[in-house]
């Protein structure tokens, strides 16, 4: 470790992995409820499990991003973090607030939770991904502000690199767009309109900047390629992201009561959104091919190559599949959407966080530049297990989705929703099996941390 304050990243990464486990368990519970309706009823209703699954996902990714920033920024800025104490304090605040919120979901009926937290005074709850009680949302903003202050001050006092600036813009964007979570107009069209400013402009806008900069950082460190080359790629990638992604929001404005021109704008611009993801693939492989050194951490390189590939497949290919409005007319809100959501989130954001953890964790734990080869073998097994499982989850959901679209929407004699769900239950069973393999992969991942490390790093 070059700067002692980078150490604050460690608790963030550990918390991220812990919450990741919780997310997957709730995914499995829901997967079972899909085929066995009253499993765990009434203790954990489907809607609660869903909320826990998706919110845990977002929260652990945020932990991962913050950890990544605390690790990466001092090294890029060549100076200690402005305030490691603040970073640790915010860690505990965020963790406790997150845990309380999840417990609230599980122990109190949602409407009760809303009443308890005074949602009627300033209603913001009840919308997918933004289910958190208003007070939790305020907490998130406070943590985010403290975090941004810390990171911004560090960058201001130190060396300013393209990587840290792109990361900073991404993180500020993340916080700014989250403010729309507080905007909850009574008009449903407007509500949905701005809801996507959080959801879409996150994953297809500012988060992509975070993704690009973390990826670039890991690639610089593991390949030793000139910073200048990597920076130029980063410029082009983020420019394309913003050019296509901002107007691309229109692909969510087809059927919610917005003006008709969104059919065109959304289709055209979002159809080009795969370009930056594709560039990331070329970029990563180019850098690794031109590498100047053989970094001992093979696992980190594997994650760094896997990230753009899976992101391109999940976001680029699976996103493109249903993004044109004449196609989306049939596929909107079906299992195709879920298939895409899983692969895109996994490929882009889960994997990039695991990549930086893979690179940074051995160093944070005082090992040499990498874990022992044996630990790396376990980690690489977990890479393949989880990645292949998510591919199968995606394929099974896509199969379910195609049948669903066909029987329920395209067919001459459309069948009712529940009848169709019965017919595609086989796919749901297979998804659940793939999900179990995912869990196995995750357990292998956890084990890899407990496998004997290299001798302690000297000096």
């Amino acid at each position, binding site marked *: 470790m070059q700067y002692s304050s980078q150490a604050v990243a460690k608790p963030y990464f550990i918390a991220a992995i812990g919450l990741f486990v919780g997310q997957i368990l709730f995914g499995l519970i829901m997967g079972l409820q899909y085929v066995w309706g009253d499993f765990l009823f009434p203790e954990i209703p489907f809607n609660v499990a869903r909320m826990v699954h998706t919110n845990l996902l977002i929260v652990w990714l945020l932990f991962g991003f913050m950890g990544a920033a605390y690790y990466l920024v001092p090294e890029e800025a060549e100076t200690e973090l402005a305030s490691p104490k603040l970073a640790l304090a915010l860690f505990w605040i965020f963790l406790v607030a997150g845990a309380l919120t999840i417990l609230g979901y599980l122990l109190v009926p949602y409407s009760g939770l809303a009443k308890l937290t005074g949602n009627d005074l300033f209603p913001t709850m009840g919308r997918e991904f933004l289910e958190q009680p208003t007070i939790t949302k305020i907490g998130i903003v406070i943590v985010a502000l403290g975090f941004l202050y810390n990171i911004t001050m560090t960058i201001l006092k130190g060396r300013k690199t393209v990587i840290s600036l792109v990361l900073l813009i991404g993180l500020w964007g993340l916080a700014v767009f989250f403010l729309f979570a507080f905007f909850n107009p009574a008009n449903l069209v407007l509500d949905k309109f701005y809801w996507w400013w959080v959801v879409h402009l996150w994953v297809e806008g500012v988060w992509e900047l975070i993704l690009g900069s973390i990826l670039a950082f890991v690639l610089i460190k593991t390949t030793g390629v000139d910073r200048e080359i990597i920076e130029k*790629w980063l410029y082009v990638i983020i*420019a394309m992201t913003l050019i296509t992604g901002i107007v691309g929001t229109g692909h969510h404005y087809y059927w919610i009561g917005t*003006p008709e021109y969104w059919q065109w704008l959304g289709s055209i611009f979002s*159809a080009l959104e795969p*370009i930056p993801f594709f560039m990331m693939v070329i970029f990563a492989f180019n850098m690794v091919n031109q590498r100047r050194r053989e970094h001992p951490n093979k696992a980190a390189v594997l994650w760094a190559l896997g990230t753009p590939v899976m992101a391109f497949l999940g976001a680029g290919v699976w996103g493109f599949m249903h993004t044109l409005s004449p196609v989306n007319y049939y596929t909107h809100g079906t299992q195709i959407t879920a298939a895409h959501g899983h692969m895109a989130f996994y490929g882009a954001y889960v994997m990039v966080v695991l990549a930086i953890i893979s690179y940074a964790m051995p160093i944070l734990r005082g090992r040499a530049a990498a874990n022992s080869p044996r630990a790396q073998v376990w980690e690489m097994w977990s890479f393949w297990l989880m990645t292949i499982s998510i591919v199968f989850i995606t394929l099974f959901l896509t199969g379910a989705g195609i049948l669903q679209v066909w029987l329920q929407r395209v067919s001459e004699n459309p069948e009712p929703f529940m009848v169709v769900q019965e017919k595609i239950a086989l796919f749901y069973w297979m998804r659940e099996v793939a999900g179990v393999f995912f869990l196995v992969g995750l357990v292998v991942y956890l084990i890899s941390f407990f496998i004997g490390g290299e001798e302690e790093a000297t000096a």
Partner: protein
Amino acid sequence: MIWIFIYAELLVFGILFLAYAFARARNVALFNESQLHLNRTAGAVNTLVLITSSYFVVRAVAAIRADRTRACARWLLAAVAMAGIFVVVKLGEYAAASAHGITMSTNTFFMFYWAMTFFHFMHVLLGMVILLAVWWKARHGAYSAAEHTGVETGASYWHMVDMVWIILFPLVYVMH
């Protein structure tokens, strides 16, 4: 590297142009009729302005290659001034359209008109910022005959903006 970016941008515009052309094929009468509301002279003036601006930028690059820093800065400033005229004319067009109640929702033709010209307009503004930055650095002697990558990069971007308009103008304003 700037080339990859320029090609990516051209791709975006290319898709827009083709979408326009094929959308028109489905509704020729509407497109032909709506097109008559556009101000062809304003469009042509703006084409001339952009072409000239591009030409000034070429002169700026030639000047810096001959190590004539001051001349380079002057040509750049002239190019930005031309771009300023483009902006004024375009805003005038937008104001006139708005006064006639023409919006993106009016019909498919005007949806494309607004979307394409406005998207291009944003590129003009960005190009101006880039050229101004290059001008600023040139004036402070940051470039020389030996090292002037910045000037060339800015110039290439600006020519791309020009090139797109050269296609856009006949396509949207004239062809029917």
